[in-house]
């Protein structure tokens, strides 16, 4: 069963007399339990609007959103204790310390203060938890927001740009944390602009453009949808290498001084094994030309703005 299920979601905003902006248009999305699901799209593509609809903050113009089987518009309260969330930079009460903020939120959900310490530890913020939030940097606020999302020990995490404002070390920390959360069996639904992070962290992605989903699937599938991703091999003996790969049933061709093999990146070991079986040793083996960023730009027409 899908943990997050969006069917025919449409969201319009009215601006002025009769003028309407369609933020999300006929969006279908299905997120299975467990793992990390990336939600990508350029600015204004409808990611945050979709997330607001998923959290009951915005009412769909048409279509439905279900989270953990509950329809958000009518029954979100039934599952809200199982969902942790963070919308852009989480706004918390600036006059409280980080810890007090989380304790207050925990109290709202009937949870004890002990869970707060666990959440603060997970985001590496325990040392500054006693400081007022108004003294926090943007990165610290992001981590506190992430901690707030973790306080409920949720089955599902819905996060909007959680790495926004973090320094490289913070981004790496968040990436590792989200990956671990996904590996624990939680469902992490995360929107992000950091495509290299998404590529490393996510199992599946959906790409949104102008309110519509233009691609969805595993990261490899989405990359493959805009061209071959494959792997690239540098060999001393190119002819022997091509023969070895052909013998193993792999499609390969010369690409300048390199050999390009048409397999998903995750099957790179099979390439190395096929070569080794024939006594051909590679000097370099790396992912092929298409990255998630390439796919993203191709799918969302970002490369050729109107």
């Amino acid at each position, binding site marked *: 069963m899908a943990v997050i299920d969006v069917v025919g979601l449409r969201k319009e905003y009215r601006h002025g007399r009769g003028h309407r902006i369609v933020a999300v248009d006929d969006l279908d999305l299905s997120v299975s339990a467990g793992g990390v699901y990336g939600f990508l799209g350029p600015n204004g593509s409808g990611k945050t609007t979709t997330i607001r609809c998923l*959290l009951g903050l915005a009412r769909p113009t048409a279509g439905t959103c279900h989270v953990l089987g509950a329809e958000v518009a009518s029954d979100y309260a039934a599952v*809200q204790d199982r*969902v942790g969330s963070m919308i852009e930079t*989480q*706004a918390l*009460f600036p006059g409280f310390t980080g810890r007090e903020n989380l304790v207050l939120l925990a109290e*709202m959900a009937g949870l004890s203060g002990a869970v707060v310490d666990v959440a603060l530890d997970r985001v590496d913020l325990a040392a500054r938890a006693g400081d007022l939030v108004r003294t926090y940097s943007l990165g610290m606020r992001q981590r506190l927001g992430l901690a707030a999302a973790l306080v409920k020990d949720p089955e599902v995490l819905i996060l909007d740009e959680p790495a926004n404002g973090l320094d490289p070390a913070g981004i790496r920390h968040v990436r590792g944390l989200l990956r671990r959360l996904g590996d624990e069996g939680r469902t992490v639904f995360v929107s992000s602009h950091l495509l290299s992070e998404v590529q490393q962290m996510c199992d599946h992605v959906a790409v949104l453009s102008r309110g519509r989903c233009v691609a969805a699937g595993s990261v490899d599938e989405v990359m493959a949808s805009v061209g071959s991703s494959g792997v690239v091999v540098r060999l001393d003996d190119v002819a022997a290498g091509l023969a070895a790969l052909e013998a193993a049933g792999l499609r390969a061709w010369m690409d300048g001084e390199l050999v390009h093999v048409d397999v998903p990146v995750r099957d790179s070991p099979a390439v190395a094994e096929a070569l080794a079986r024939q006594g051909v040793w590679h000097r370099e083996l790396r992912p092929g030309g298409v990255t998630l960023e390439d796919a993203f730009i191709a799918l969302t027409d970002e490369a050729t703005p109107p």
Partner: protein
Amino acid sequence: MRRLVRVELRRLWTRRSVRWSLLGVFLAIVAAPALVPWAFGEQARINHDADIERCVQDRPPKTRDGVTMPTIPADVAAPAQRERLCDEVTPTLDPDFHLRELDEVYRTTAPLLIIGGFLIGASSIGADWQAGVIPTVLTWEGRRLRVFTARLVALVAAVFAAVVAWQAFLAGSLAPYTLVEDTTGGTGGDWPRTIGGLGLRVAAIGAAAAAFGFALALIGRGTAAALGAGFAYLFVFENVIGTQFEPLRRWLVFWNALVFVKGMFEAGGDVPDRTVAAAAVILAVWATVILAGAALVFRRRDVV
């Protein structure tokens, strides 16, 4: 629900506007034993001067504390002598503050408390809109009417309790002065009930003002919107309507609030024939309509 109310009370306590208000209240209570007697003495002097002036100009006499102030007919004395004569015949008013006059203090300070209640009510939710805290709260408690009710209950209870406490502390700070000056007379009989009733009515109207501010800030999604709309409506719209079309006063917030706080019917006064109970009903209807509207808007509108 109790959990939410408790959280809201804690949050309310940390608001800077609340703490500044409490500091102001504390300073006022400390200064009251000096300030209130000085103000009463000053008022007595001003009234005395006005009575002399009225006498000199032979205008209709005024009655103070059951005593009609004398006047001298225009043909009795030469203009040059009138001022001296009026000064001699006009009795000096008692400049001391008497404990029985505490109701004057409560009525004089009521507008400040009501405006303070409105400001705190508006900022309690307006600041959260500005800071973007409302979406965070709603992702933790998605039942918006529960959030609305918890916030309203916490706010109204806090403001009501704060105004009652302020009045009690004020009475407590003024009592020693009246004991020393021996001006505690006239506080027996119905006085405790009368002053208690007035105090509770002021507290109730302060809490209602907080609820109005809360509702307007919720609809306008900001403190400034609530303040602008609230003050424009009360002090411009209702003032103009109430002044130009007196029969309409009986249905307006401002004029019924006046009757409710004053606690008496004044013939030819603010709203003829309007009783305190009827004013309370009208105010309750207004509050219900505005709060119901705010709840509906909060429940249905997108939170961005």
